[in-house]
């Protein structure tokens, strides 16, 4: 019945929505930033543990749609062990993948985040996918206030 949506709602997304990874409060976090999308009410808190310039651990709390939950869940997995510079580069690639005019992002670097590429066909949903990354960006820039994608 929802055949048209198979590119957007891939099974991986349903899986992460049902069982989000790293879904917990991190008491010992070095960075804690809130992200909010006022359009749909998606709200998340991202926690990072940083050692030197390496992201040792990432977790999150909050509620959102399947796209935004899967996006932040996948993000916390993929940034673990990356340097801050590497994470910023991933953000750039992810941004390119979800909003870019042509598909010039680095597929290899993006890895399993590629399941979110489908949002580019759904402009109303791009912000759901990018909220996590904007929040990460703010956390890496050490902006402790809440950020908003609007």
């Amino acid at each position: 019945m929802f055949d048209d949506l198979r590119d957007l709602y891939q099974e991986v997304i349903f899986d992460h929505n049902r069982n989000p990874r790293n879904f917990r409060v991190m008491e010992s976090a070095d960075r804690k930033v809130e992200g909010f999308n006022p359009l749909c009410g998606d709200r998340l808190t991202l926690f990072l543990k940083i050692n030197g310039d390496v992201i040792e651990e990432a977790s999150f709390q909050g509620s959102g749609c399947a796209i935004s939950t899967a996006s932040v869940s996948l993000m916390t997995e993929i940034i673990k062990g990356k340097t801050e510079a590497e994470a910023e580069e991933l953000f750039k690639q992810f941004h390119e993948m979800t909003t870019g005019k042509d598909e010039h992002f680095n597929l290899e670097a993006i890895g399993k985040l590629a399941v979110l590429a489908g949002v580019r066909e759904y402009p109303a949903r791009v912000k759901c996918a990018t909220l996590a990354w904007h929040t990460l960006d703010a956390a890496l820039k050490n902006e402790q206030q809440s950020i908003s994608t609007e």
Partner: protein
Amino acid sequence: MTGFDVDKIRQDFPILAEKIRNKPLVYLDNAATCHKPQTVIDSIVHLYSHDYANVHRGVHTLSVRSTDLFESARTKVKDFINARSDKEIIFVKGATEAINLVAQTYGKANIQKGDEIIITAMEHHSNIVPWQMLCEQTGAILKVAPINLQGELIYEEFEKLLNAKTKLVSVVHMSNALGTINPVKQIIATAHAKNIPVLLDGAQAIPHMTVDVQELDCDFYVFSGHKLYGPTGVGVLYGKQALLEAMPPYQGGGDMIRKVTFAETEYNTLPYKFEAGTPDIAGVIGLGAAIDYLNTIGMDNIAAHEAELLAYATEKALAIKGLRIIGEAEHKGAILSFVLDKIHPHDIGTMLDSLGIAIRAGHHCAMPVMDFYEVPATARASFAMYNTKAEIDVLMNGITSLIEVFG
């Protein structure tokens, strides 16, 4: 319902023949804005093709024709809500501008530091923020009458808020987030007993029921044309003439003046005093055409048809496991707001869209209502006169299927 033929009505709305993602459009976002019958579209095309010029300005033929059409639309609005006089009908951009106008003119002139303005917990942002702005400017205080879990105003609590400091009650006639129809006649009587004027936000109510401002005895009534089958860009502020006369103007400019010198300006009479600048001429004339159309159908027929749709949709929705209706007031208009267990409204919206179904997913510009129900957002199906039970079946099948897909 004599003579109400939904199939015939559907023929009058060209957009309803549109295919969305290769499926017939099922348009259930009427509370956000509703579609236009051919006669409204034609009235605008005809205006620009044959009669258009600026209004109130010229002696030439087209200006006279335009002005006549424009002013006759004002009379149509007056008759539609049963105002006493054309002078009480002010054309504005929409409900939002109308409320801002009252806040910045009536409000500034009559509301001072320490005075109180009463709204309810189910207001649209457009009936919250203009009052907050006024309070910031004047030092007045905004008080909020609470609602119960059904989404109904708790009347005793509302009554308790009224006191000698209360200078205005501003309430929604029908809530866009919950569908609740407020007991506005009673609210007005209660407030008037204490000499407190009442503004009704009729943005949602006006397309669904007969509104008689004299019978209600409201002091102000506001609505938007685009939710009443008319064009965007035009709305109405109704005000009792004596109140409007006493209010200072809103914006300065052309049309709202009688005489201007650099030393002083004499303001124009009602309703022009509040209509500075070239108005939305086509919008106003299109709104007049929408009212003509509504009069051929009959507001009572529309209300009866929509009540049937709402009852049908509510019954079907209650049978879906994991669906919770947000807003279960006893007295309710054609709005079905709901949430699904573990499925975000935004996902519901995208999934239904792929089936050609347009609903609204979000906070409906009523964030305090969302906070009250502790949900980030809801999905909302809102019905209009052209909707059918068959469309509700499509919606409910869609919801059932997407619940399966989400697992």
